[in-house]
């Protein structure tokens, strides 16, 4: 899973999410026990109302509404959020926010929230990946803010388009944008210099990209040109979309009934990667999207297709790196963004209103900038880039400016559909099989599209 600023990027620790899991009981037992426990608890609390969420519920003695806030963040990002919540609690007497990570990282937030909904102990505001939006919206516990977006404090126009799309599955606005990132190419300047290859320019093409990757690949020194995850999940799939969109392709049809990623644009796009992987052999196959980071950190990966969540890690390695927008096709350099959401879950009207009040405050530019300073995440509102203190943020994280500017290039959004996780799986396996030399692009994409069409044909 793509890492968001919350997941720890501890200095010198590769694959921090895995290390973190070690602290819990074995993953298997955790899951099995978790499923068993959630069923049990649900069975025991079957008919009870939904209003007993946690120890503190709405309507305190003083008329203060208390809400539960699960952010899933770790370390400095978590501390920054706690500070912000304390500030909010001091300045807002009518709402009290109980802040916690939720006990899990953002990667595992969905199972946690599902269990808590079954048990009736779900939070009011929770951090959830954008790819889960449609499915959490089905829970019946989400709200629809679409009629209220013009109220003061929302400043809805001041969010990126892709964020707004992801937080509105099926036209229902289920919360506020929480985070946005995008893909760019991070490159190791030393490898370029050693090979005498000029750094990529802002107008580079996919053919340039392929040539450079091939030139910089050096099997003797174990240096790869570029990375590509072959786990077959969203990590694999979202790297495929920029090239598809640039060539004029679409993921699915506008009416969401048909897969279109197997168009000529898609085939051409995948053929390029296939040639790089199987002919040039310039691609590092990452089994789970966590090996490329240490590979780049140890100077064995020339170009790293990744995003802002790497910035803190890169600073800790001391590597001399630069970043550039994705290669383009006919001058179109659009990228893909992976927005995440603050989802509001409904207990009662008072608590929903309190959650809105809190999120309006939290996503206001001044507060956002404080959280960006701690988490090295990108501005979720374009207006943040106009704040006087924005320069301090850019100074603190060298290299992040290009990634923030690259948000302008995130023109299309991934679909928000309940079938999306399964479509991702079908497409991901198709892409991986092509890269690993087991299938040709056209056949693999056609087969994935056929599976997707079957999924899309089932009414939800």
């Amino acid at each position, binding site marked *: 899973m793509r890492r968001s600023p919350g997941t720890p990027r501890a200095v010198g620790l590769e694959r921090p999410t895995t290390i973190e899991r070690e602290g819990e009981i074995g*993953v*298997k037992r955790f899951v099995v026990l978790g499923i*068993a426990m959630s069923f049990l608890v*649900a069975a025991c609390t079957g008919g009870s109302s939904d209003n007993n969420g946690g120890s503190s519920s709405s309507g305190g003695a003083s008329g203060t509404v208390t809400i539960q806030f699960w952010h899933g963040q770790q370390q400095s990002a978590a501390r920054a959020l706690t500070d912000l919540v304390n500030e909010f609690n001091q300045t807002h007497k009518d709402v009290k926010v109980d802040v916690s990570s939720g006990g899990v990282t953002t990667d595992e937030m969905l199972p946690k929230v599902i269990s808590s909904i079954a048990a009736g102990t779900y939070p009011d505001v929770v951090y959830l990946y954008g790819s889960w939006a449609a499915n959490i919206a089905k829970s019946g516990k989400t709200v629809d803010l679409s009629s209220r977006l013009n109220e003061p404090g929302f400043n809805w126009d001041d969010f990126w388009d892709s964020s707004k799309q992801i937080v509105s599955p099926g036209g229902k606005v289920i919360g506020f944008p929480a985070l946005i990132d995008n893909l760019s190419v991070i490159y190791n300047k030393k490898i370029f210099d050693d090979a005498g290859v000029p750094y990529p320019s802002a107008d580079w093409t996919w053919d340039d990209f392929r040539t450079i990757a091939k030139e910089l690949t050096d099997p003797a020194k174990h240096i790869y040109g570029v990375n590509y995850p*072959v*786990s077959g999940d969203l990590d694999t799939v979202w790297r495929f979309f920029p090239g598809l969109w640039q060539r004029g392709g679409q993921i699915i049809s506008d009416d969401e009934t048909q897969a279109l990623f197997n168009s000529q644009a898609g085939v051409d796009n995948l053929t390029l990667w296939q040639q790089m992987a199987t002919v040039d052999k310039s691609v590092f*196959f990452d*089994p789970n999207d966590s090996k490329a980071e240490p590979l780049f950190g140890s100077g064995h990966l020339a170009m790293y297709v990744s995003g802002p969540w790497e910035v803190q890690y890169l600073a800790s390695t001391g590597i001399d790196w630069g970043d550039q927008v994705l290669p383009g096709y006919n001058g179109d350099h659009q990228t893909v963004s992976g927005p995440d959401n603050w989802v509001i879950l409904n207990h009662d009207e008072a608590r929903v209103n309190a959650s809105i009040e809190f999120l309006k405050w939290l996503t206001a530019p001044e507060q956002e900038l404080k959280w960006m300073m701690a988490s090295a995440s990108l501005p979720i509102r374009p207006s943040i880039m106009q704040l006087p203190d924005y320069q301090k943020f850019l100074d603190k994280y060298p290299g992040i400016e290009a990634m923030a500017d690259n948000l302008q290039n995130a023109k299309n959004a991934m679909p928000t559909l*309940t079938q999306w996780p399964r479509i991702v799986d079908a497409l991901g*396996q198709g892409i991986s099989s092509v890269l690993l030399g087991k299938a040709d692009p056209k056949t693999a994409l056609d087969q994935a599209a056929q599976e997707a069409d079957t999924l899309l044909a089932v009414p939800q």
Partner: protein
Amino acid sequence: MRTAVSPPADALTSERVAQTVRSAERRRRREDNVHGWAFAGPSVVMVLGLSFIPMVWAFWLSLTNSDLVSGGHYIGFANYSALAKDPLLKKAFTNTLIFSVLYLPAGLLGGLLTAMMLNRRIRGIGFYRTAFLVPFIASSAAEGLLFGFIFDPDFGVVNSILGKVGIPPQRFLTDPSQALITLAIVYFWTQFGFNVVIYLAALQDIPQEVMEAAAIDGARGWATFRSIILPTIRPVTVFLVVWGLIDTFQFFDLVFTTTKGGPLYSTITLVYYIWELAFNFFTAGYGAAVAYVLFFSTLIAIIVGLVYARRRGMAL
């Protein structure tokens, strides 16, 4: 109207005595029951609460199209009839079976040989015995991480050793045809310590007199092993096979931390598939149906194993 014949007095008394004895017996039994249940009660509640009720619940879930977030509704056995047409389930099932076949014999043999080596009195034997158990105790998430490095295609120890003996570098976890075998090797390293401990205990249970008698009868190494050691440890072997079956059928954590079922589903196992169905694909009802497939295949495998063992006279 009274009958002239009444039972003799002594018969009456004996009847009464018998009755008294019976009721005392009943009372004692009742008290025993109360005491027994008082002691067993908490664990019965635990078993019912943590095993039985979730099982029943999961069965109900498998008859619905629930996604865990919204309730879902009853769809009869539709999930079960869909199972037959699911290519991914077939893949997960085959992988799990292959994995069991890869691990079980190796785990038993490796465990027994190591236990025999450790079954002697030499200096520092406690340390050696502990050393073999450590991987079993260590967290499998950490082991997944460790072996990710060891089997790294470019910088891993294994490829550099292979290179020294002239074997070209292997792709291991990124090669669909090698990933499952690699995971089985890692799993062997993490699990066979348990077999060692159990076999070691069994070996130490073999009476010294029997070994001495065999020696007097002229039995040497191989004959002793075949005629004395093997028959004695048979029940333990049966136990380890059953235990190993349950464990390998539920293989999940290493997959989760290393390959996530890939590349190309080559390491997708039943439990990983169930996890994916419930928490990634939002088809918890179908996932529960797959969980029941897992349950019954484990059950059948164990029953077949036990029946075979009983027939061969090595029952538990």
